């Protein structure tokens, strides 16, 4: 099982970035909806679409998938 994104579906809303518990523990400011100060986090919205930076850090809890309104991020 690994984390995948479908950039064609992505709205760029950033909910997954904020919801991801690993992102928040790496870069606490994302929990407040601010952009991350580091590219160490798992995913970030770049140029309006989601982009995976460190996919291997994913702990596979399924939170991003649960919150994504358009199935643009999912575990498979």
């Amino acid at each position, binding site marked *: *099982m690994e984390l995948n994104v479908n950039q064609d579906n992505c709205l760029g809303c950033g909910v997954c970035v904020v919801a991801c*518990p*690993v992102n*928040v523990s790496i870069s606490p400011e994302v929990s407040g909806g601010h952009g991350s100060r580091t590219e160490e986090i798992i995913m970030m919205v770049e140029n309006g679409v989601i982009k995976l930076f460190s996919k291997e850090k994913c*702990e*596979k*809890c*399924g*939170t991003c998938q*649960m919150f994504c309104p358009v199935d643009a991020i999912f575990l498979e």
Partner: protein
Amino acid sequence: MIANTKEVKDKGFDIKRSAEEIRNLSFKDHVCIGCGICESTCPVEAIKVGNIGPIVRNEMDIPKLEIDEEKCVLCGMCSGICPVNALDFTIDNKSISDIDTYPKYIASAEIDDETCIHCQRCEVACPREAITIPRSLPERSKLVTGEIEVNEDTCIHCGICDEMCPTDAIDVNRIPGEESILINKDKCVYCLICKKSCPVNAIKAACRSCSYGEYDIDMSDAVTTGSSFIDDETCVKCGWCEEICPVDAAKVKKQFKGTLNIDQDKCTTCGTCIDVCPCDVLSFPESAGPATRVPNVGKEEQYCIHCGACERACPTDAIDVKITDVDYTPTKSKSWVDKFEALKNR
């Protein structure tokens, strides 16, 4: 399902396992709680437990665990150590849980039918929907006593009593030419609302319980009867029924004793543990009012079975579950004892 016959080759030896007995391992996905105990117990690392978080939360259509049939040696340990009996191991079609030489957990959940008052509190509370309490209520007409009568000549079939009646005991047909009024005495509780609301005083009614007491009511007719049923397959012995039962009819014996600790600083409130917990132990606490802080995740540890599914699923390592005591039937096998005792060091 994994069938028998296995050939183990090791440094020039051909070790064949007798196939005189039929060994079978089967898995019930709907029972599995994803605790990972089988995975850490399997002596040949044949079991892989999936990521229970996304499977449960996104209702994924994939099995919670996979067994490598090439590696499995059909020892049955996973079945014996599974705290919820999701894995069933049989030898010649007999489950090892019915074979005395194999150890098993000492755990049970029972409802005493003599004490049970069939309130169905446990049925509602059970996180696994494992309890059914079928009940039959007493007949209402036997709990009240009174008289009611309609004067058909006076009645104008306005339907006011029909609309007002709290027990739907009155049926008025208002179609011109077909007018009628019927009172169902099995439903009537002699509340006298119809009598008071009738604009033409066509109803005569009296409640005898009020004026005369309950002398002609047999209180043995007022008892709710029923039975109780716990589905042993889905029950995880969490203790909700015992805690919630108002008359102490439910008794639960858990196989593990232990501790559950949540590091609130590491927790990022993603809610994975809450969705994964098979016992409804964890929840997001309600705010206690302005300017007060509540923990990120709250726990009701009395319901915890210390299975460790939450610890396994937590993406930020904020949960620590420890088993301090394991209760199982005695066995002569040191390997089995070692595996049961090893649960304390997970």
